[in-house]
């Protein structure tokens, strides 16, 4: 049986892992060149947002998985937690990667949000009468919305039964809808919020990674207690930041569109992404004998079960969003899905249904499949790919018809490459399992199979 004292669980001189970080770094270089040389600034902006958010979701999934394990005082995941922690600790790297994008939005060089950014300019001399019941205190923006509400008879007369072509009136109404949101959707507020989200994630990640690393040295159970008690409040902060980041970065690409479940959909995708990534890295370490028996097939089975569960959860929330919008058929909501159906996107939508649900559901449902590690590895590669497609499907339809460009792949290689170069480099520096965790022994002897 395994004993922690006999091995230090480090990458050491392993032929692959000692220098693994070089591979993503090279890919990042190639991808960066590919993206920079083949696309104009507009397409590059969309491609970069897609790549950035794909990696953001992996990192967010990491924060969630670490926090939830401390919240529930789980022991099963202790020995795989270090991999998740290292991925999570890449939050500042993500922040660095996000900075050019945020700066671009701030200066107007990145045109993905121009629809509401332009409305901000007009918002200043909005001719709606000032509202006399402005008691909501949201800096005038709600007052503006109320102005709309009270003028709703006007909307009602003009907004309906006009056929499909966009009349001048409709265009005006569309602008008014977006102008009413400029209290939230305006460049300074957006930029400020983006920085706050990144700060929140970076601080949580570095606190938890730091404490866990310190516990490696001093084996002090008080670190665990502190991380347990902070997990609940931090999860609330995390959930808020994730939701509004999803609203700001993805939902506002189509500023007239809205969906209350949007944050939950993004969260579900993040959980799927981190579980598949953790299994893949874990499998590689396991196969190369770097973690001994500390991570055993039962741990992979547990992670795979959670992965299966979150794939179902992703399907559940994505279906809820689509079904309710489709069923009600309200034009202002349906337009978002319409964009993901026309212009060649129908194929991608179907690919998500089959690739993100039907296939993994059937191919991961059985215990035999999940315990076949080679099978599991192939499935995790697929799941990560399809997760990227999912984010692609959120972002790129806003840029027009479906056409994969080298810039999309290049941007993903660049952002993903830099991020995973950090992750792999960090894995080479730290013990691969949290050797100081008081629940480690229990996790090492974790053999329950259901």
């Amino acid at each position: 049986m395994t004993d922690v004292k006999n091995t230090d669980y480090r990458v050491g001189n392993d032929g692959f892992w000692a220098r693994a970080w070089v591979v993503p770094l090279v890919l990042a270089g190639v991808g960066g060149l590919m993206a920079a040389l083949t696309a104009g600034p507009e397409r590059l902006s969309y491609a970069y947002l897609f790549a950035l958010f794909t990696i953001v979701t992996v990192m967010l999934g990491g924060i969630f998985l670490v926090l939830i394990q401390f919240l529930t005082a789980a022991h099963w995941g202790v020995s795989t937690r270090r991999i998740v922690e290292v991925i999570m600790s890449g939050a500042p790297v993500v922040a660095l990667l996000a900075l050019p994008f945020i700066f671009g939005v701030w200066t107007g060089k990145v045109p993905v949000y121009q629809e509401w950014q332009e409305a901000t300019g007009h918002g200043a001399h909005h001719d709606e009468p000032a509202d006399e019941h402005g008691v909501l205190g949201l800096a005038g923006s709600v007052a503006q919305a109320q102005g709309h509400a009270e003028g709703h008879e006007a909307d009602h007369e003009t907004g309906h039964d006009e056929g499909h072509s966009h009349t001048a009136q409709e265009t005006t109404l569309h602008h008014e809808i977006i102008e009413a949101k400029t209290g939230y959707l305006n460049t300074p507020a957006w930029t400020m919020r983006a920085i706050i989200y990144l700060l929140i994630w970076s601080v949580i990640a570095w606190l938890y990674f730091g404490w866990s690393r310190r516990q490696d040295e001093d084996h002090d159970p008080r670190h665990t207690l502190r991380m347990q008690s902070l997990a609940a409040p931090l999860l609330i902060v995390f959930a808020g930041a994730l939701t509004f980041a999803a609203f700001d970065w993805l939902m506002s690409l189509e500023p007239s569109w809205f969906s209350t479940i949007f944050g939950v959909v993004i969260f579900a995708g993040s959980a799927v992404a981190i579980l598949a990534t953790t299994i893949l890295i874990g499998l590689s370490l396991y196969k190369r004998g770097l973690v001994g028996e500390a991570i055993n097939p039962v741990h992979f089975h547990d992670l795979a079960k959670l992965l299966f569960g979150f794939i179902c959860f992703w399907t559940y929330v994505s279906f809820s969003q689509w079904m309710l919008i489709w069923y009600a058929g309200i034009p202002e909501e349906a337009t978002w899905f319409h964009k993901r159906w026309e212009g060649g996107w129908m194929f991608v939508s179907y690919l998500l249904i089959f690739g993100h649900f039907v296939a993994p559901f059937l191919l991961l449902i059985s215990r035999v499949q999940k315990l076949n590690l080679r099978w599991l590895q192939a499935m995790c590669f697929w799941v990560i790919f399809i997760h990227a497609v999912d984010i692609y499907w959120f972002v790129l339809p806003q840029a027009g018809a479906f056409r994969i460009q080298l810039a999309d792949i290049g941007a993903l290689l660049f952002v993903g490459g830099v991020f995973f170069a950090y992750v792999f480099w960090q894995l080479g520096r730290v013990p691969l399992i949290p050797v100081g965790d008081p629940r480690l022994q229990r996790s090492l002897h974790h053999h329950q199979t259901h």
Partner: protein
Amino acid sequence: MSYDAPIKELGETYLLPEGTTPHEVTETISRVTEDKTPRGWWLLFLMSLTALGAMGGALTYLFVQGVGVWGNNAPVYWAWDITNFVWWIGIGHAGTLISAILFLFRQKWRTSINRFAEAMTVFAVLCAALFPAIHTGRPWFDYYLFPLPNQMDMWPNFKSPLMWDVFAVNTYLLISVIFWYMGLIPDFATLRDRSKNLFRKRAYGFFALGWRGAHRHWQHYERAYLIFAGISTPLVLSVHSVVSFDFATSVVPGWHTTIFPPYFVAGAVFSGFALVTTLMLICRSVFKMQKIVTVKHLDYMNKFMLGTALLVGYAYAMEFFIAWYSSNPYEQWVFFHNRLGWGMLDSEGNWGPLWWAYYTMVFCNVVVPQIFWFKRARTSVPIMFIASILINIGMWFERFVIIVTSTYRDFLPSAWGMFHPTLIDILTYLGTFGLFFTLFLLFIRWLPMIAIAEVKINLPGAHPDLHAIEALEEPGAATAPVPAE
């Protein structure tokens, strides 16, 4: 050495107090069904029967007169009947969550409450199912709900979420009853073996299906349990999701929003846990079960309520934010005028008159549970008793708020109509408590209210996963992992 032993430095303790013996567990639980019926039980039973009788009267009057005896009006076509339906079915969510989802997550503490919660699930779903059956006032047409060939060539509308409800609720009821019964089999055998008279022996023996506790029996039992947990898990989510579709597929502001399915599920689990807590606290102290349902169990349940309260609070916040963000004036009207009661005044300059329902809901569902951040509150019986009751009041108001405040002042001021419940509404609702508690009291009197066999695996020193280790180490075993090279 057992690696499951509590780690003292982390403040871990055994779930059940040390020194508790398996015999003590069997005694404590079985005794309730064997001792002489307490007088208090008869008193409560008669009260429940009275309430049930009152419902009988209210329903008879309804069937004779039609739905006009309720307060439903135009535009509040759906009022207390569907509020009560959704409320009861929500309560029916804790049982299956505890027995299925918490089982899959290996939450061993569930064993002290699962039986109890499953029984409540079944009874609550029955109370809920009553409302679709009576809501037209013409129960003799209920067979329309099912896709049965009939003489009028009438066929249910499969495009209607109300139709899906019929299937979702019936499936849930069926699976919950089977799951509940299956878990009872080993305990029926225990009661059979303890029986002192022939009638009891025969009756419990009949339901025990010849259970002898053989190795093979347990193996089949465990496997069936796992399969049922797998089947029930999606059902926990599907039922209340389909219920939420009743509203969310419409285009009514306040009903049509995409977060409804998970939001309803979270609310259902929340209210289910609250009612389980309320009733468990009473039974625990009446039948002296403090050693089996420990403060630690209650602590976990309260944490669960806090967690689900936060999820529900998240949904409330999202609805409000998106109502504003949508810049849809009708959406904003429902949230700011009809619910919040301020920010948007009607043409006479008045607040929405049902604002108090919204504040009751937020207070009970979001503010009250915050007390469970404190360990002292989570381990204090009086506090959690009061909080759990307030939560259920809040959850009733949540459904009332969704249903009535979305409709009573809608698009056209000329079509507005205030809703007032009638005496028949109130009697029918009270009557469902009669139905619920009649069944519940029969349950605690005749069936083991805690899963005797399952609790024992949590006794200090029990090694439930010993055979799993052996199975893994045995070459060629079915569950053995593929060795990695």
